[in-house]
């Protein structure tokens, strides 16, 4: 039986797709070319990609300065990208190449072969006391932990324990900036931007690797 497609006067999106299929090479190749040209022209102000890891998919985003954001899936990637657009630059494009190095280092970290990250970071999303706290966190060695109180003392504000907790909870670069190594004084986990399961998984990884 023949099924002559009728052309309606107005097209819905699905009719467009069915009646006017995109020719080969379709969008994937064109996109790759666009990303390359945009990058060459210095127009990709925030490049991002996702990466599958043992703690779930991560979103990695970088400016020309360096890695600006690592996000867990529970933070909602769309919301994370929207925040990057409004706080850093709306020129946000999925452009994985700029994240190659960060992806490799994270993969090495998750296989237990990397104990320190050696990546240029862009602290554009951190300010004030929070930034101060986040900058000292990489001093906590791989496999060891500190309490919120100890970090407060380390930054010279021994009574700002709660503010240290907030600084850890709002860390824009989790895992790379190891806020997961900060626990409550009694050894309880406290909170974690990636969820407590992720915090436990990271601490276990570092203890056993």
């Amino acid at each position, binding site marked *: 039986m023949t099924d*002559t497609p009728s052309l309606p006067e107005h097209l819905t999106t699905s009719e467009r*797709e069915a*009646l006017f299929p*995109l*020719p080969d090479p379709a969008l994937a190749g064109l996109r790759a070319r*666009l990303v390359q*040209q945009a990058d060459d022209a210095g127009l990709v102000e925030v490049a991002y990609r996702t990466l599958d890891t043992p703690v779930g998919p991560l979103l990695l985003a970088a400016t020309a300065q360096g890695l600006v954001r690592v996000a867990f899936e529970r933070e909602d990637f769309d919301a994370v990208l929207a925040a990057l657009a409004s706080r850093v630059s*709306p*020129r946000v494009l999925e452009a994985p190449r700029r994240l190659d190095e960060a992806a490799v280092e994270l993969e090495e970290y998750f296989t237990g072969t990397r104990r320190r990250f050696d990546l240029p970071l862009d602290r554009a999303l951190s300010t004030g006391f929070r930034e101060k706290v986040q900058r000292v966190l990489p001093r906590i060695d791989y496999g060891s932990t500190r309490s919120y109180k100890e970090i407060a003392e380390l930054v010279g504000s021994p009574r700002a324990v709660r503010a240290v907790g907030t600084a850890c909870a709002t860390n824009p670069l989790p895992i790379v900036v190891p806020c997961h190594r900060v626990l409550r004084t009694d050894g309880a986990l406290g909170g974690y931007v990636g969820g407590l399961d992720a915090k436990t998984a990271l601490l276990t990884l570092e203890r056993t690797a």
Partner: protein
Amino acid sequence: MKTPYETAVQRHGPTVLRVCCAVLGPGPDAEDAWAETFLAALTSWPDLAEDTNLEAWLVRVAHRKAIDVTRRRARHAVPTDDLPEQASRRGNPGRDDGVWTAVAALPERQRLAVAYHYLGGLPHAETAALIGGSAEAVRRASADGIRALRRSFAAGDDTEGAAR
């Protein structure tokens, strides 16, 4: 715009490519126009007003980029007695470009009206502003184009006699 540019590529990339294919034929020219449209959008992105009708804006840019591509092609055309074998820029008749072959066969005004109004979603008046003539003339050209495409679909089914 304060929203991520990426969403514009994902949401409107296919529509803009259909418009470029209808205007220039599927192939390298349409791909160039598509890429130049989205590069222009990326350049202007932070300055675009939040209430911009993005699809319409992109389709209008695609129109200008298609003209650029056509002009560039004409400028690089050198008269010669020696006609080399050349790949078709309006799609390959041997390849199954399906509907695009039928679109390419339309008279120019019908083809452009179908591209900008029917595929690009621009109102008749805005399409007329791009391709000239009155909104009413564009409405007729678009309707005639669709009718011709319908006929070529039907004819294709008759001659091939196969179910799709």
